[in-house]
């Protein structure tokens, strides 16, 4: 839905842009906040899941008879308890298959059975008594290997889409995508310099500190409740109801406080299992993943293999850009290669551009979104080549990027023509930043990179109830993952003209509010924020009508200003301004409760750009890298609560640092994950890092009344490349494979020194 003309952008803010304390803050610093695993219910059972030890195996027989006889076991579910209600919806069938294995276990960790028992010990004992007869099959975990003819085949039903003619033989290649415009071959003919490279990145995990957890309470009459840590409780409700063949209306889902998600909590894993166990046991069942289960059986991101070729004139103008991206997304269709291919060249103004993507399945857990899904790996490849070209041209990397940067009116590499965008401002600001002028020490190198993310709008529903004391109760349906309730209160307060602390925002359960899409795509401050603003404007319309009624003048003769109804002009009558509280106090006598609502499919999420600068120090003895300085410059459109915007910039950059330097899924020859724990899968710790400097730019998004753009995801797009460029500069050799762990750097140094 495009914004109508009455929603002209606001520029003079009273509370938006300030940094008040968050409303859920005291609960979170005192340990009172209730996260997924913190809930209890009377008569609660403990649910645990049995998982395949094999990367690929046919499940010939499941025998639960011994486990059923164990004292304290109240319910066991297997594939037999999950009949197919998906009605031809292939994507939903994949979710069903991922939640509980059917004819085959497709990765190590794939759920094959589950138990509900009186306590954790009995549940663990029961799992040991379940006998599964497996026929072990050949497996494949590497993306390039999985694409080869003769590779172990996961599904006999995959015939590559997007190629003509459609293949007659099944393969692991789900689909081919292609984006771009112009004539790439002709463009390369005009180039004076061409650089072509192949890059690899390993799979990483979102690494949220809170494991998946839920508490299901289902009755034999079909009524059910679910408490769950998720980025989208409406998604959980609809998905679980459809998988189990239940009525949506009978399942009420409440979102707990959520201990991180970063995209990883945008689908279901344990929730349908917990509900099925609860229904069968007719008791509440709590299921909490262990950290090992989180690594093996939730949704890490894709590992990738990417070819990039870019040609430039001597003057530094790009003539053609071409990329082929191969992403494995685990055992089912849906790697984020489409977004990778769309975003790869989105930062540049290109005449001839093409990006081809292949979505590939392997014997790994089904990937889930991870912050700007698909984009960081593409940016790693493209921005590494950009840095190398700049060096060959003898241009400063930042000037080379400025020369080719996308701007308003650029026909983007993925189709649309850009409106007002913030890439050039971030580059120009970066150029003036003291970071660029700071001297480098021995063994240090500097790198930079740009990044892009689409941002998303989506289905949103908000309700704003005015209380008779003049305060406001705001109900939103998007889980608050990083302070969004504070931002919502700021926007409601801004519109209503009441203080920030007079608005209380809650994340309403699925029975209290209309459908809301998941908190993803950096959409909440944009889409839920805009719905909040429009719900407040709806409430203001009703407030002015009530004031008009009290004064006995026409509703059009009343305006709203800074929390007060006022006669529109001298002709309207001479009445003293009436506050929101005064009108609300008389609501019962003037027509009943006053509430504002807004329901829509939000459109107009402005695209977002960032430029990052990184200094890295490489120890030539050990190959270890230390990030010594890091600066993020990003367009936020309008920063509603600048502290939490900075927090998004910093958090994304540091996740990128982990991805670039340490983090990787390491598979053994047996197809089993070798490092399913935080000791061996090492995310950045406090002592690894410097301060992360941030610069917020505000290039208003015309699609939002305050100009807001999503900020959550873009910050993870540039770091892989910015760090690779810094490390390559420090080491004197180009690194093309992530993570740039000490052994890889040492090997590159040795190969270079020959």
């Amino acid at each position, binding site marked *: 839905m495009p914004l109508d003309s009455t929603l002209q952008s606001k520029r003079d803010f009273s509370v938006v842009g300030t940094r008040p304390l968050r409303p859920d803050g005291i609960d979170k610093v005192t340990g009172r906040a209730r996260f997924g695993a913190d809930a209890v219910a009377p008569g609660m059972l403990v649910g645990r899941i049995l998982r395949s030890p094999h990367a690929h195996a046919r499940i010939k027989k499941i025998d639960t008879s011994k486990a059923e006889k164990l004292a304290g076991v109240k319910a066991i579910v297997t594939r037999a308890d999950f009949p197919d209600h998906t009605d031809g919806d292939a994507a939903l069938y994949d979710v069903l298959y991922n939640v509980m294995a059917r004819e085959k276990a497709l990765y190590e960790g794939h759920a094959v059975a589950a138990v509900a028992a009186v306590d954790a010990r009995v549940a663990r004992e029961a799992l040991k008594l379940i006998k599964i007869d497996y026929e072990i099959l050949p497996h494949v975990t590497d993306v390039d290997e999985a694409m080869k003819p003769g590779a172990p085949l996961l599904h006999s039903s995959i015939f590559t889409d997007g190629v003509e003619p459609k293949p007659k033989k099944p393969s692991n290649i789900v689909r081919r995508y292609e984006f771009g415009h112009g004539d790439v071959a002709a463009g390369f003919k005009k180039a004076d310099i061409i650089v072509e490279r192949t890059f690899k990145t390993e799979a990483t995990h979102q690494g949220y500190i809170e494991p998946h957890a839920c508490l299901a309470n289902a009755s034999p009459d079909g009524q059910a409740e679910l408490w769950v840590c998720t980025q989208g409780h409406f998604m959980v409700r609809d998905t679980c109801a459809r998988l189990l063949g239940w009525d949506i209306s009978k399942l009420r889902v409440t979102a707990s406080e959520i201990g991180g998600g970063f995209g990883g909590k945008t689908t279901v894993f344990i929730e349908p299992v917990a509900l099925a166990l609860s229904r069968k046991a007719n008791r509440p069942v709590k299921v909490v993943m262990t950290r090992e289960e989180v690594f093996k059986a939730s949704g890490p991101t894709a590992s990738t293999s990417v070819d990039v070729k870019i040609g430039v004139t001597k003057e530094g103008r790009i003539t053609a850009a071409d990329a082929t991206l191969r992403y494995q997304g685990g055992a089912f269709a849906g790697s984020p290669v489409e977004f990778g291919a769309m975003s790869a060249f989105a930062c540049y103004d290109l005449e001839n551009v093409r990006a081809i993507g292949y979505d590939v399945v392997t014997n790994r857990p089904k990937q889930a979104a991870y912050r700007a899904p698909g984009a960081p790996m593409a940016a790693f490849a493209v921005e590494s080549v950009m840095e190398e070209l700049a060096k060959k041209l003898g241009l400063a990397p930042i000037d080379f990027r400025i020369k080719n940067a996308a701007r308003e009116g650029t026909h983007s590499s993925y189709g649309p023509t850009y409106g007002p965008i913030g890439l050039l401002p971030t580059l120009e600001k970066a150029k003036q930043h003291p970071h660029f002028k700071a001297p480098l020490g021995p063994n240090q190198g500097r790198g930079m990179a740009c990044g892009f993310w689409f941002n998303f709008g989506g289905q949103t529903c908000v309700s704003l109830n005015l209380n008779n004391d003049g305060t406001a109760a705001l109900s939103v349906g998007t889980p608050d*993952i990083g302070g969004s309730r504070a931002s919502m209160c700021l926007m409601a307060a801004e519109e209503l003209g009441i203080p920030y602390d007079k608005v209380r925002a809650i994340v309403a359960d699925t029975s209290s509010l209309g459908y809301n899409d998941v908190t993803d795509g950096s959409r909440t401050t944009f889409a839920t924020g805009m719905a909040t603003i429009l719900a407040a404007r709806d409430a203001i319309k009703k407030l002015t009508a009530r004031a008009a009624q009290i004064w006995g003048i026409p509703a059009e003769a009343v305006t709203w200003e800074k929390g007060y109804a006022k006669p529109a002009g001298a002709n309207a009558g001479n009445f003293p301004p009436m506050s929101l509280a005064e009108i609300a106090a008389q609501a019962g006598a003037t027509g009943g409760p006053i509430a504002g609502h807004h329901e829509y499919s939000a459109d107009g999420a402005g695209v977002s750009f960032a430029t990052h600068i990184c200094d890295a120090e490489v120890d030539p003895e050990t190959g270890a890298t230390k990030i010594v300085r890091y600066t993020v410059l990003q367009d936020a459109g309008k920063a509603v609560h600048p502290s939490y915007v900075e927090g998004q910039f910093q958090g994304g950059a540091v996740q990128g640092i982990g991805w670039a330097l340490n983090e990787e899924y390491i598979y053994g020859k047996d197809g089993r994950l070798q490092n399913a724990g935080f000791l061996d899968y090492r995310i950045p710790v406090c002592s690894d890092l410097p301060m992360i400097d941030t610069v917020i730019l505000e290039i208003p998004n015309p699609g939002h009344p305050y100009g807001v753009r999503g900020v959550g995801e873009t910050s993870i797009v540039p770091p892989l490349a910015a760090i690779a460029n810094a490390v390559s500069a420090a080491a004197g050799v180009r690194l093309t494979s992530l993570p740039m762990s000490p052994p890889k750097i040492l090997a590159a140094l040795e190969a270079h020194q020959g």
Partner: protein
Amino acid sequence: MSGIHVRTKINGDVVEYVCDGDETLLDVLRNRLGLTGAKEGCSTGDCGACSVTLDGRLTCSCLVLGAEADGAEIGTIEGMAKGEELHPLQRKFLEHAALQCGICTPGILVAAKALLDHNPKPTETEVRFGLAGNLCRCTGYDKIVRAVLDAAQEMRRA
């Protein structure tokens, strides 16, 4: 399995409980005593979300058995504020927006307090190493380090 009787002091209060021999202190706190401020992020001592103090020493409660706490004094996040008054660290975490999702926050606050109890005037580097056992995936630690340094300064003035 027969239970083990344990007598301990938690946040200054005498607490008695019966636990199984293989039950961690974290499980006892969360499942038997309703003290869910300590979080289970890994159960292998790698994330620090379950941090408590055991006789004044910073400890991962997932690495200690409930039975081992007999006779010990335990400090948890629930004991950090005094009535309505937040500890300066808690206040500074809010002022500096040093939390996003908040799941690591109780453990980090317990670890930060343990650090300042031993070293009231830490450098940035000392804060970073003092908190190196506590994983935060949201913030990149920047605002956490600033909040701890600011709280330390305020506590020295008081």
